[in-house]
C-alpha cells in the first residue's frame, strides 16, 4: 500500500468509525472487530452502513460488491472505499 492510500484509508476508517459508534451500542471499536458476528448490530444496520458509505464517499455499492469481506470490519470497509474510489 502506498502512503497516499494509507492516509486515505485512515481518514475513511475514522469517518466510518464515528458513524458506527453513533449507530450501535458500543463504547469503542477495534479496527478488526467483526461487526456482524459480534451480535451488536440490528437487522437494519447492514443497509444503513452501506447507505452511509455510498452517501459519504460518493460511491455506489452494486451487486458485484456484495461480499462480507468488504463490510465486516472497519479495516475492511476502509479498504473497500479506497479501492472503489481508486477504481472510479
Amino acid at each position: 500500500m502506498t502512503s497516499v492510500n494509507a492516509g486515505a484509508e485512515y481518514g475513511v476508517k475514522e469517518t466510518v468509525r464515528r458513524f458506527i459508534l453513533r449507530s450501535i451500542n458500543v463504547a469503542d471499536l477495534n479496527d478488526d472487530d467483526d461487526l456482524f458476528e459480534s451480535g451488536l448490530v440490528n437487522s437494519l444496520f447492514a443497509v444503513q452502513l452501506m447507505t452511509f458509505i455510498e452517501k459519504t464517499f460518493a460511491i455506489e455499492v452494486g451487486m458485484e460488491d456484495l461480499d462480507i469481506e468488504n463490510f465486516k470490519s472497519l479495516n475492511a470497509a476502509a479498504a473497500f472505499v479506497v479501492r472503489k474510489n481508486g477504481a472510479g
Partner: protein
Amino acid sequence: MRHLLTDQQMARHKEFKDFVALNVEPFAEAWDQEQKIPDHVVSMLASAGYLGSSLPPEYGGQGWDIVTLGLLNEAMGRGSSSLTGVLTVQAMVSMVLLKWGTEDQKGTWLPPLATGELIAAFALTESGAGSAIQSLATEFTWGPDRGSLILNGSKKWITCAQRAGVFLVFGKLEQRSMACLVPKGTPGLEVEPIRDLMGFRSAGLAQLTFKNVEIPSTNIVGKPGFAVSHVAPVGLQYGRISTACSGLGLLRGCFEESIAYAAVRKIADKTVGDIGMVRSLIARMGTDLEAGGYLCHNACHADDDHLPEVFEKTLMAKFFTSRAVVRAASDAVQIQGAAGCHASSPVSRYYRDAKIMEIIEGTTQIHEELLGKMFVDQARRLR
C-alpha cells in the same frame, strides 16, 4: 406540510388526487365487495405511468423522486388501500432490481415493470416466518451443473400474487439467504387465491406453493448470503414508505368523511360537530393527520437525499400513521354511529382496511422493538 413541496410535487399530487376522485373512489366499495380490482383499473395506473414512477427514464420509468412516490401513495390510499397494494409491491420489486440486479436483469425486467406490462409480487412472508425473516423455510438447491436452481416451499399472504407475472422469492440456499425471480407459469408453481380477508380485500393476496420449481441461476438477485441483510431491506424500505403514505391517505379519508358528516348531520337543533366529544375526536384525527404528513415527508425526503437515517425515519412514519389510522377509522365509525357500520358508508371499509396497515411491512410490535432499542441506545451513548 404543503409548504415543503415544490410546485411540481404539488401539481403532481393534484393530478393523483384528481385521478383517484374520478377512477378510484366511486368504485372502491364495489371492488372490496367483489374482492377484486378490475384489470382495466391496473391498466389505467400503467398508462398514467404510476407503476414505474420511481424507475429511471432509461428503463421507461418516470424518474420521479420519492417524495412524489409518497404523494402518489397518499392519494391512492385515500381512495382504496387495496389498490395501493399494487403500487407498493411493484415499487418493492422494481427498486430491489434497480439496486441489486445485474445489467442483464435490469435490461430484461425493469422496462416491462416500468410500463406495467408486467406486475410483480414480493414473496417473502411464510406461514412460519412473517416479520422474522431470518426463519425462512423455503429452500433452493442447485440444479445440474449449477446452471439452475430447484425451489421447494411455500409463501403466504403475498400481496398482488393473484395478478403478478413474476415473483421475487426469498429462501435459503445451503443455509444462506437468497432471493430469486420466479416467473408465473413456471412448472411446479401454484398460486392459490386467499379470499375473505377482513380488510385489503381486493389486494389479490395468494398463497404460493413451489414443488421442484426449476429456475435459471441467472435469476438470482444479489448474491447468496445477502438476501436478508441487503436485498430484502431495500424492498421493505419502499414497502414501508408506500404503506406509511397509503395509511396517511386513509387517515385523510377518515378525517374528511368525519368533518363532512359532523358539519351537516343534525341531532335535534344541533349538528354532530357541535358536540364537544365529537370535536375532541376530530381534533385528534386532524392533528394526527398533520403530524403523519410531516413524518412521511421527512422519510421520503431522507430517501431522496440518500441519508442512512432514512430507515429509522421510515419506521417512525409507518409506525405512527398505521396506529393513527386505526384510531381515526374507529372514531370515524363512532361519529357516524349505525350509518358508519354499513357498507353504504366508506368509513366501514376504512375501519377494516386500517387494521391491515398495522400488520403489513412489519407489525407495530416489530417497529416498537426496532425503534425502542434505537432510542434507548441513543440515550446510553449520551450518558
